[in-house]
């Protein structure tokens, strides 16, 4: 991690979104699409672990035991596995999104410096 630590929130420069600049609008859109993709995949896992393995397929899974233990697998998902997976899902989400956030921030910073220099040149 060679990223610069994010500035404390109080000193962070706050800017309004500049809708007239198509590159910035596109960058924001890209960020949003990445966000939706990460969210979609994780929500699929969420549904599969909890509602799927924990409930809908529990009967079928119950014929197996969690290896080395007395837990029938469906029962294990409903009372242990789903919760463990939920914690991991949020962990992955926080890590991935914060990375995407940093990427987005760097991209925007670059764009803003560029457009500022261009403006300066014109004026």
């Amino acid at each position: 991690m060679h990223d610069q630590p994010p500035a404390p929130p109080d000193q962070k420069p706050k800017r309004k979104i500049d809708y007239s600049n198509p590159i910035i609008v596109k960058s924001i859109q890209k960020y949003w699409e990445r966000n939706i993709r990460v969210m979609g995949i994780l929500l699929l896992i969420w549904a599969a672990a909890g509602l799927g393995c924990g409930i809908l397929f529990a009967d079928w899974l119950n014929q197996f035991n969690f290896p080395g233990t007395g837990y029938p697998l469906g029962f294990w998902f409903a009372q242990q596995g789903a919760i463990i997976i939920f914690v991991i899902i949020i962990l992955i989400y926080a890590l991935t999104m914060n990375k995407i956030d940093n990427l987005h921030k760097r991209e925007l910073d670059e764009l803003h410096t560029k457009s500022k220099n261009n403006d300066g040149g014109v004026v």
Partner: protein
Amino acid sequence: MNVMTWTYIFVGITFTLYLFIAWRARVKDTKGFYVAGRGIPASANGMATAADWMSAASFIGMAGLIATMGYAGGQYLMGWTGGFVLLALLLAPYLRKFGHFTVPDFIGDRYSSDFARLVAVICAIFISFTYVAGQMRGVGIVFSRFLEVPVTYGVIIGMIIVFIYATLGGMKGITWTQVAQFWILITAFLIPAIAISIKLTGNPIPQLGLGSTITDTTTQSSAFFLDKLNDIGSDLGFGSYTAASGESGGGFNKLLNMFCVALVLMVGTAGLPHVIVRFYTVKNVKAARWSAFWALFFMAGLYLTAPSTAAFARYYMLTTLNNRTYNVPLPPQGITTDTGQTLKLINDADSIPRIAVDHGTDGSFAPEFTSFTTAAGQKRYIIHKTTGDILSELPHWFFNWERTGLIAFFDGDNDGKLKYTGREDNEIFRTGSGAIAAELGTLRTNHQLWLDSNGQQGADARQILTAKNLSGPDRDIIVLATPEMAELSNWIIAFIAAGALAAALSTASGLLLVISSSVAHDLYFRILNNNASETSRLAVGRVTIGFAVVIAGLFGIYPPGFVSQVVAFAFGLAAASFFPAIVLGIFSKRVGTTAAITGMIAGIAFTAFYIIAAVYFKMPHWCFGIGPQGIGVVGMIINFVLTLSLVPFTTGPNEKVQEMIASIREPEYEPPAVDLEHEPASTAADLINA
């Protein structure tokens, strides 16, 4: 020292600690009062959220529910944790970026409508009151069992403590108190679980213990604990503990209902105002994500342990009660104790003193009684010291809890032995609170008459209680009696009482703050008086907490019989109203005011109608056989479908709202401007700088 003295010590220490923290964290402005000045670190906020979320119901009630329901209890475990995934992925970061004080703030601003704001305020207040009532009942139970204080006084003491630290410190005081409460409640939950796991399975980690084997002392054969529990349960007519739907029957309908209940709890959790508001208190969007992670991480400590506590307690319950004699007539051959003494029959002309006189308050025996264990270590007897009368084979905790009406024995075949089964011959009941508890004496007299007269006179109490759905012990005793089942030291039992109080008080204070902010901020400031000063808003907030505490306390002292149904209603309502409105508000730029409000009202109306009709008017569950607990899912679907199908025919949000949506969707740019028509300029600037 006995349990009561220890309990006084622990409750005294913890309450002083809470007040001290509140004093250190006292606040003077609304920002500190409602969102703790937005300066709470993510991990501390996670702990506070966990304590806020884990209520008396989670601490006292959940393991009991699982113990009774077996596999199906997983719906609560998954529901109450899975909701945090939705919260973290769909709501928390965006609401933090939005950055106002409350949930109605978001609904009102996003749909630029005071009507939507009002609907949200009413839902928030209703949901919070429903919840607080349950917490106060929890406080009452703990005080009456462990401190021998009448429930009324217990509730009043709890009310005073919460009132002081909630009004003094607002969200800041509550948050730091909750951090302390988290550690107390989680330690109190883990210690007995670990102890009982060591005792039963030899494994100190309860989760591993639950999956491991136990050795039968008589046959020396070892088997998986869960298999053994399944066998015992099936023998007694309860069905298998771990089977999903196949063996225990119910089939598809059972699975569908479980699916719906789990989903309602997940979605409802994500929509509950006192949880959402926690994410307004952290520094920024990143911290909001981390704090959702920490919240679930810390909660998992309890939610992953509860299944073990439940299964172990279930095992103890079934094996230590069944076929044990309630009142032992003296065995003629005598009995050998573990110390090698032979205790023989002593003629006693007087009637044997019923064990009921030995309701020692501290789990010890009254001076004239003592206990011993047989040579094989199998059975524990209670005997009279001077006469040597053997009084009971039952474990002592049974009598401690019999006194509270949470467990009761009515002999059916007049053999004096307990039968706890899932069949008609069951002899273990509960009287609960309310009308039946008051009639307990009459019930006992009539039942004795019925037994003595061979069914000619009196009344069979078992039939009366079965008809009222009061078979089996009250599930609330499972967690509180577990340490007594495992025969842990007195101070541990007392510490659990302090833990249960921490769980109840932390949730109650969070809810009271939501009620206060709904009234003082959303209703008074945003709707009624836009020019209210900071001082008067704070004053209204504090006064509201006062009123809310009193009302909540009254609920605790005179518990309405319908609390559990109303809690189901709270989740259904949150699922059918807040969740779709907030999610669509963030993820759709096209949903406008009319569509959203219509959807919200339709969702609420359907859910409310179905629950009320099914619970109070015996309406058949015509909607695919889904019960009232799970119907919020259908309400939510109605809300989503109606709202989205109305979008093409109604006006979308205006440009200002569009900008607001754009700005909450990404973390870098300036947060959305506060609705300036409603907010004095100085406060708006203050918020933007925050």
